[in-house]
């Protein structure tokens, strides 16, 4: 419909501009409009425009899902944080009261601290260890062993977090767990893996690293594949040893993968929920309670939707600030060939 309308206007404009010898102001205006319509029609017909339209059609599903599942909920969450709403009755506008209350909420500050510490250790474990495991796997000569190890490390990543948590809950039981059984066989005292505040936190980090390390290993393996072998050959000719090749070629050229992994790991770690929820329910005390757990309890336990939304907003800005900082700092240490 739109195309035919444009074509009609364009054709009318051409006739009008050709036939009119006397250029009255009205005629000139009409001629300009006609030229614009002709230009638009030409643009629509151009290859570039067709490509652009096809491109928009290609991204339409993603764009729609982004709008429906990300942008609209994010804006709704921002709006909700300004209201006192219990799901059942009409929301009351309270301005920034939820944020003021949040700043004085000791439990929120505790959960924020727990989340930050978890993010720090889990990111270090996942990204740091993942990189060295990838380098180790990549240096193996036998391709079958490389493929086996790659798969073995990746398998935990595809298992549901809840299943992983239940499995570790069984393995790490204090009195009857398999891990403590073998430790006691070695003469090591049983460890309260999930029942002491200190150990529960460590266990959760350990489980998170066990589950996610394969994903980061895979990213680093892909990064390693992209490093040209000529660089190593040249380094060998120059007499560079293994350590020099690692620190001067491998690690600098892995920094784009490292940069990507750090951002992904940090965002994921700040949103941690399932493993704590299943294994410790935030305890003992609040030792393993994270912001998302507290948020869930406030939203669906106490039905304080506005207050929970304000937590989500704070978490969103923390993650945003950290990501921006990383991107800014990334310019200084990430090497792109």
């Amino acid at each position: 419909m739109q195309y035919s309308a444009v074509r009609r206007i364009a054709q009318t404009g051409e006739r009008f501009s050709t036939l009119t010898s006397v250029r009255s102001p009205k005629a000139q205006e009409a001629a300009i409009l006609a030229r614009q319509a002709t230009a638009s029609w030409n643009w629509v017909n151009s290859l570039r425009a067709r490509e652009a339209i096809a491109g928009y059609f290609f991204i339409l599903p993603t764009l729609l899902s982004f709008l429906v599942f990300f942008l609209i909920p994010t804006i709704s969450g921002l709006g909700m944080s300004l209201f006192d709403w219990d799901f059942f009755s009409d929301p009351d506008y309270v301005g920034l009261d939820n944020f003021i209350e949040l700043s004085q909420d000791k439990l929120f500050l505790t959960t924020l601290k727990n989340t930050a510490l978890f993010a720090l250790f889990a990111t270090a474990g996942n990204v740091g260890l993942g990189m060295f495991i990838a380098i180790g796997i990549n240096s193996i000569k036998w391709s079958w062993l490389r493929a086996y190890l790659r798969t073995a490390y990746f398998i935990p990543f595809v298992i549901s977090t809840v299943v992983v948590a239940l499995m570790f809950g069984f393995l790490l039981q204090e009195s009857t767990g398999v891990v403590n059984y073998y430790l006691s066989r070695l003469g090591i005292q049983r460890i309260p893996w999930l029942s002491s505040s200190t150990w529960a936190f460590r266990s959760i980090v350990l489980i998170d690293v066990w589950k996610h390390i394969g994903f980061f290993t895979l990213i680093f393996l892909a990064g390693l594949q992209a490093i040209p072998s000529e660089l190593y050959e040249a380094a060998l000719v120059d007499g560079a040893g293994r350590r020099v090749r690692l620190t001067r070629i491998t690690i600098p050229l892995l920094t784009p993968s490292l940069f990507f992994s750090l951002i992904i790991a940090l965002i994921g770690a700040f949103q941690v929920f399932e493993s704590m929820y299943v294994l410790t329910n935030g305890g003992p005390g609040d030792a393993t309670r994270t912001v998302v757990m507290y948020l869930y309890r406030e939203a669906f336990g106490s039905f304080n939707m506005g207050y929970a939304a304000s937590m989500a907003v704070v978490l969103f800005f923390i993650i945003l600030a950290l990501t921006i900082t990383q991107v800014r700092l990334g310019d200084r240490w990430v090497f792109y060939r």
Partner: protein
Amino acid sequence: MKSILKRSMLIMALVILATTTAITPAQDEVTLGFVYGSFAPQEKWEAYFEGFLEAHPNVTINYIPVPLDSWGDYTQKIVTTMLGGEQVDVIWNAIEAVPLMAERGVLRELDSFLESDPDIQEFLDDANPKLLEGLRWNDQQYLLPFAWNTTLIYYNKAVLEAAGLPEPPPDWTWDDFLEYATTITQDTDGDGNNDVWGFHHNAWLWHLGPWLVSNGSFFLNEDFTEPWYSRPESIEALQFARDLIWEHGVGPSGSFNFREAFVAGTLGMMIDSPAGRQRLIPAGMSADDYDVVFFPTKSGEAAPGSQWGTDGYGITKDSQHPDLAWEMVKHLVSTEVMSKLLSGEFASASAPARQSLASDPVLVAASPANYQRFYEVLENGRTVINAPYFAELAEIHDRYMSQVWANEMSVEEAVASIQADMEAVIADN
């Protein structure tokens, strides 16, 4: 003449038949949403609807499973499901959830049905009045009781026998109990770790409530407006319960699969409910292999006590077919359906709410010798916490008592914090 009359009568009859058939509409197809706990598979719940679907061929049931970790979580998930647009008509839920669901307008009051439907009188006469009363809120009935639970101490007869102990007396004291637990606890292979434990309990409300009731106290007062944690009787009972693990070493610390250990003979005594039968039967334990006894009291003179809770069926306020939903609820609390609790082969093995089923031969055959003790503590027990702020209170209890159970906080510190935090929650509500 006669034949004309006959023909006219026949034609008239046919006309009336045709007219009435045309006027009477075919019964509309109706789908009723039914929320149930997914701890039991759907087919076990489907068995409850035999008879109902035959009587109402136009009804289809949309089974909506909801995971049941705790009643607070279960209720939250139901509410979230409904807010998400799922059509729910009949809900299976527990006493803990009634105040919240009633106050939030999720459940429909059932008094109008109870008053207008004479068929329900038979159930009202048979159901335990305590359970019926427990499912009321603000003088209105919201659920009809189906099955109830309380807790007693289960003991494994073979483990006690191996330790040279007779079956415990019903009026035993804390000292007696400690002696039993100490005698049972053994390091059989001498590796420095206990292989057989005397007793196990967690810091859960469900496990600690009976210790408090047996010592003349509870978590809160009768109407749940005043915490009782800082009462001397509460502190004394909680201290004894904690010391069993950390002072006397007769119970394992940390997470522990107590039911598996009980069945395997590496745990002598544990806390469980009538529903516990259902978990022991498939593990190969017969009703003769174990029995139940009251919680001990400090002096042995106090009446044994525990806490009890009940589940039931109710209708949502949003139900588009409340009359049919009511028919479904009536069916679910019928003797026929409730009898399915007795053998422990269906969705639940909790005790039936109908008093007429309390001594049913099927129940007696599938239960330990002293099963009737559950009924005795029901009479003396306290109801579980049922207040609109139940989830908040439960979280406060867990927060501090889990630290006591991890030996990271003293009982005195914990009760002081619980008392203060619960008072704040109650004041806010």
